[in-house]
């Protein structure tokens, strides 16, 4: 279970997140929509501990991160949180000096201290499920955007995160590839993963999400089941946004 309560984040005097609250069940997908600058990306960066939160709490499978903890305790909990949360960045950030296989086993071997053999066997399974098994020995520099994305997903999943965050996964894909990504993500949900996906493509999110969160100006304007939010939005701001998006 993932629960975010009254989450606040400031950059200097600018409050970027003004008290975000939502809760999602395991094995569901939350799609986050909103205009650029609405705070979507900052929300994602708070959830994986890349930004320090200024108020509220984040709870994820027994880890509770909250503002106002001592520095040492906060860092300890961020470390725990990061083991529960995996991230697929918009630009993937694969490690260019490591092979595809090396990218995937790096963290299991050096953070979880899994034996290299076990980690490799698991990596091949993951690569197989994202359709990249044949590229295990290649280097990121020789892969296309879509291939990089699949490797990045496999790399994040190799750490067995309870929650997988995806930042703009559709920005690099043509419609055909979007469909196959959607199918791929759903298979991982069926295997037990929970996801939060930021995307500008409402069509993509409509097909993959269980719930939708609409953000504007750092506020969670509307949160609810995908069908309800997209088809009969309650808030006029959501209506405006969806109309313009069409």
């Amino acid at each position, binding site marked *: 279970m993932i629960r975010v309560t009254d989450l606040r984040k400031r950059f200097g005097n600018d409050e970027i997140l003004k008290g975000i609250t939502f809760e999602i069940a395991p094995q569901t997908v939350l799609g986050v929509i909103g205009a650029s600058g609405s705070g979507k990306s900052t929300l994602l960066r708070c959830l994986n501990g890349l930004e320090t939160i200024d108020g509220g709490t984040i709870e994820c499978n027994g880890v509770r991160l909250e503002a106002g903890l001592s520095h040492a305790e906060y860092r300890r909990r961020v470390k725990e949180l990061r083991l529960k949360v995996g991230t697929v960045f918009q630009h993937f950030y694969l*490690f*260019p000096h490591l092979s595809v296989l090396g990218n995937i086993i790096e963290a299991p071997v*050096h953070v979880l201290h899994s034996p290299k053999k076990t980690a490799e066997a698991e990596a091949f399974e993951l690569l197989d499920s994202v359709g990249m098994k044949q590229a295990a020995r290649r280097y*990121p520099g020789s892969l296309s955007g879509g291939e990089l994305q699949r490797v990045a997903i496999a790399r994040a999943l190799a750490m067995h995160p309870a929650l997988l965050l995806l930042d703009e996964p559709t920005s690099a894909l043509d419609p055909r590839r979007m469909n196959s990504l959607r199918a791929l993500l759903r298979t991982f949900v069926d295997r037990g993963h929970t996801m939060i996906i930021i995307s500008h493509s409402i069509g993509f999110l409509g097909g993959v999400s269980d719930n939708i969160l609409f953000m504007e100006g750092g506020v969670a304007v509307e949160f609810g089941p995908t069908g309800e939010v997209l088809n009969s939005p309650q808030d006029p701001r959501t209506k405006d946004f969806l109309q313009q998006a069409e």
Partner: protein
Amino acid sequence: MAQKVLRWGADPSGGAPYVFTDPANPDRYIGYEKEMVDALAQAMGRRAEFVPSDWETLVSALQRNSFDVIVNGLEPTGDRAQQILFSKPYYIFQLQLTVRRDDNRINSIDDCKNRIVGTLANTAASRLLEQQGIPLRSYADPVGAYRDLELKRIDAVVMDVPAEAFYARPNTKLRPAGPPFTRGLYVIGLRKGDLALKTEVDAAIDKIIFDGTLENILKKWGLWNDAQVEFQAPIRSGTQSTKVEEYTSTTTTFNWGEALWRLTRAAAVTVLIALGSMVIAVVLGLPLAVGQWKGPAWARAFCTLYVEFFRGTPVLVQLLFLYFGLPVIGIAMPGWLTALVGLGLNYAAYESQVYRASLEAIPNGQWEAAYSLGMSPVLAFRRIIMPQAFRIALPPMTNDFVSLFKDTSVAFAISVWELATAYRELANASGQFLLLGLAVSAFYLAMSLPMAHLARRLERRLSNRTTERLVEQEAPV
């Protein structure tokens, strides 16, 4: 008509009592030979003009016409005779062995067989030591030799008596070991074929000996002794000229096999210094880079200060400071170690900047990706950031290493026998500047080319497997 000049060359640095800078009046030169040349010039109807030069290169400077005569306690040796002309002798010198006052092991040159003895390069003393197979370290001036003796870097010093009397006798920590030994001649050196000037100079020497001018000068400088009385007597009694044959001349013939062996040993020292200092630079550069890049304010200030100090002052000055300055607070390292540490500290400043630039070139996303996989900052740095930065840093590091190799030559300033020192000394002793120069260049290339080749191969291997790397990843299609 303008008065003719007599341009004379000598090395005034540490040159007392021959010719040196007047401590009370640093814009002037003084010394017994300065006064003697003034007297000679007067006798020749010329005006003396001093050309400060370098002991080691006096002969070649004379040949290049930088001045007309060498007057610098020059001994008429066989190898010099092939290159230049000698005047009549004007002084009888002897050698003196000096040791530390509390050192009772050495009382004559025969006790020095397995000790390191310091002396000036290419002098009667250095040739004598070489002939007797005594390990010697050559210095550019007596000050450095006696200081190293005090600091126990060497065990004894052999020097011509005039220099010994001036530099070692007043030092209470040193003592003369045994009486002065061997007798040799000082002459004036002239260019080959300059016979007219030689006649003029010889006549002037006779004149200032005959009329007692030289005696007065030598007495004034405390250099008048029985040997001079004996030497001057025939000239002053009649017109009989001095018999040169009565005095030893410490000639050595140039031996190519031995020279190449010495060059090989010098090359080994060069490699040792270069490799050792590169290890220091590569290792120390990293904390400097990280401190300056991500450290707390005090660490950043310290690292910046370090880098600016070592980049902003000449490496030669740093070496002299380490070699002569540190012993004041009780740290006396041998010359090769001083060069190794000094160059290491110096190049660490440069390497740190190479590292810093390389580390900063790694996109922040690499850090974030590592963090979000649960890596600690240390692990992320070690496994993700550093290997990528290393690839960027490798070409400039190779460049630095090659230039470090050549920079080892500054170690000659602190009497380390590396390749450049070897070239200077062997070439000055033999006059074989061209051939030895080619040999030394071959040695340098033999060391730097394989290294450059190795670095290129490593670079190629690293870049082969990650061609086109970041570009595609940063701009997804």
